[in-house]
């Protein structure tokens, strides 16, 4: 086990209208990206509460990727305004408590950006791999 490369667990919250469709496009275009990401489809990235992100980390996620429509393109007009407020705040709060804010990433990916989707997932997985397992996971308390 010890010499095996660390394979991070990454949770992706993707909005139904843009990023999830972008993931679909990446799929049908046969673009390669690492299988570390577990995708959860949500109707709007604005529905992703900080609770969900924290819960994911608590349950052993090494990274959380949130994908939404570009600002102004939201299917619900302004849902993603809340996404960015929440996530920017949460990133800063995580940083303050030393939980490594880089493990939480927000990216706007439209339905037409299949290649961008694949690239973001590749880059994010690579970054988390380099960072190693989540600090929350290394402690015996984090079951």
């Amino acid at each position, binding site marked *: 086990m010890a010499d095996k490369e660390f394979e991070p667990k990454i949770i992706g919250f993707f909005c139904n209208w843009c990023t999830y469709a972008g993931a679909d496009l990446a799929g049908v275009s046969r673009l390669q990206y690492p299988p570390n990401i577990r995708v959860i489809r949500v109707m709007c990235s604005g529905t992703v509460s900080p609770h969900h992100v924290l819960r994911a980390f608590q349950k052993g996620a090494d990274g959380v990727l949130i994908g939404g429509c570009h600002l102004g393109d939201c299917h619900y007009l302004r849902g993603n305004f809340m996404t960015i*407020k929440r996530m920017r705040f949460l990133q800063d709060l995580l940083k303050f408590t030393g939980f490594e804010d880089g493990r939480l990433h927000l990216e706007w990916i439209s339905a037409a950006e299949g290649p961008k989707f694949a690239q973001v997932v590749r880059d994010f997985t690579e970054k988390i791999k380099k960072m190693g397992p989540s600090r929350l996971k290394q402690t015996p308390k984090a079951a």
Partner: protein
Amino acid sequence: MDRLREKVRNLLQEGKVAGYLGYMMQDGHPLPHLFTPERLEEVAQAIVAPDEARYPLDKLLQELVSRYPDATFAIQVRGCDERGLNELYKWGQLDPGKVVLVGVACTQAQADYCECPGPWASVIDYGEKCEPVLRSRRVDRIDALAGDEAFKEWLASFNRCIKCYGCRDVCPMCFCKECALEHPDLMSTGKIPPDSIFQLVRAIHMAGRCIDCGLCEENCPADIPLRVLYKKGNALVKGLFGYETGSPESGLSPWKNLGEESTMTTKPL
């Protein structure tokens, strides 16, 4: 003290308020007390609680108002209590037309202890304005730590938690009927210490809502430096959204509306 008692007596006598929520010495303890027109003689014993004895009067007021929704009450407020009232008005928990302030200015010792940026109420019926403390040294100290050191320190604190919910129960701003901390899908149940995210979840709820009264920290049997966490949360909200928690001028909380436009940018990968 006489000025304060005089004001309270007048308010009660003229029937402007149904009661005054303040403090009285009872059995040698300064305790919260509801003064009513029926027992006007008690007003002579109304006091301003000494620094170390503070109670969540805002929370008691919410309880009172839920029982007597049409009545107007007067309440003794420090700077933090008043910020709390302002925030509660914004969240639709209290009606500003039904609250009369009896304001208190904190002592310098109290302001220093709290690192309070606004240690007096907008009306002052007792005490003198002192020097506000604009920067929190406790927050600065954690800010200066490297990531893993900060993590170690916080985790050590969080792991002392005995999940008594004291921080939530004493908090004048915690008015939700259902609590995320008790939601089995969001927080593990039957486990002590609780999930390491327990305090973070509360910190998220407190951002832009915590009025920095510090009762949570005083109430905590495990001495978790909760106040530092919430102070930072408010500082972040101010930096990111320009929202001053508890100020009547700064409009609605950023969490209460989506906003007409967004100029924020995502962090680079």
